[in-house]
């Protein structure tokens, strides 16, 4: 299972973009991703990327 906390923010941003557009298969992340703009996603991804265990 891929790790996202502490992971490359760019990857998270791309995944979120794909969840939003429906390109990436999802059960709930599509519905969640649509609640965040590109800018917000980048801020969150940067924050997540900076977190350690």
């Amino acid at each position, binding site marked *: 299972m891929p*790790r996202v906390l502490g992971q490359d923010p760019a990857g998270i941003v791309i995944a979120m973009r794909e969840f939003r557009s429906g390109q990436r298969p999802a059960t*709930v992340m599509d519905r969640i991703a649509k609640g965040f703009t590109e800018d917000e996603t980048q801020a969150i991804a*940067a924050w997540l990327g900076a977190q350690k265990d």
Partner: protein
Amino acid sequence: MTALRPGRRAFLKTAAVGAAAALLPRPALAQATSGRVVVIGGGFAGTTAARTLKRLDPRLAVTLVEANAQFTACPFSNEVIVGLRDLGDQQFGYDKVARDGVELRLASATGIDPQGRSVTLADGGRLSYDRLILAPGVDFRWDGLPGYTEATIERMPHAWKAGEQTLLLRRQLAAMSDGGLVVISAPANPYRCPPGPYERASLIAHYLKTTKPKSKIIILDAKDAFSKQRLFQNAWAALYPGLVEWVSLSSGGKVTSVDPGMMTLTTDFATHKAAVANVIPPQKAARIADLAGVSDRTGWCPIDPVTFASPLQPNIHVLGDAAIAGAMPKSAFAANAQAKACAAAVATLLVGGRPAEPRLINTCYSLVAPDYGITIAGVYHPVNGQLVDVEGAGGVSPLDAPASIRAQEASFANGWFNTLTAETFG
């Protein structure tokens, strides 16, 4: 730490990530003087708030006041009722919380003096605070349903606070003979866990179908619509045909009185005799909210959507089921998300900063069968003093999803529970 995947601890960390992310770079925190925060209620909201505060600013003195040494979680307790889970899987202690530097005070809070900024405890103790966070959950309105009192919950369990009541309802179902009628009385909005009564009906139907197939279940409802309604009703038709009957408010579903001695529930139209009766009573914010003066005429607590501060009393914040959180449902996940946003706001306020607007996420899983899960999700933000849905986001699982997706959501539900409880209690 871990993937944003169910079963992993990470994805909830992001439930109120907007607030936390906005807070962290603030230089103000570096020069913070310490403050005293008291949190009342060691449930999903209060425990999360206490730990998050300590993590955001280790110099804060944070005290968590909780009446019980062990917490019994309601999410997934419907599975306990039908024998799919043990009650022990629902129980959590506060060791980790104490290890995080939160001072744990096992006592019941009996009074609050908002002007003097102090809390009185049942053991005679007193705690003073700079900011108070109230997260006491719900109480039942014992005057809300004629015939239903604290003295009758042994006959007609509510099982809406998990613990002995959960086990009692489980024993009653197990003892019922095949062909018995199970009646659930569902309350009007708002109440703890909007999809809860229907998940419970589904899992009881699963139990009856597999062990007592001549039995039936009726839901007598005080409302005309409910959370994930079409998903539930489609699933009932597919999995439990003829077994589950839902009687809406306008078809006479509202229970107006009960007679626990006779095991009857009465509506304006009929009297139902039950073999097992589960009465989910009307609810309000727990009593300590009234004593603090933060509940309004509705019995619930209005809040500011950015800081969760009460408009009714200074320096008191209200979280979780007790709060009127706009479009957010009364769920454990929402309680956890609100707690993170509130902790960020309180830490900022204590150093004279201006709290950032949070963006909050809720996700509620319901099982209609052990391998059939459905969800409702929402993203919320403050608009004109209210927490409202972010437009275009959220919603329920698709109506036409294949069985494989339902099975996937059922397994994600387990990850959801493990993540949420690990995040809250450690």
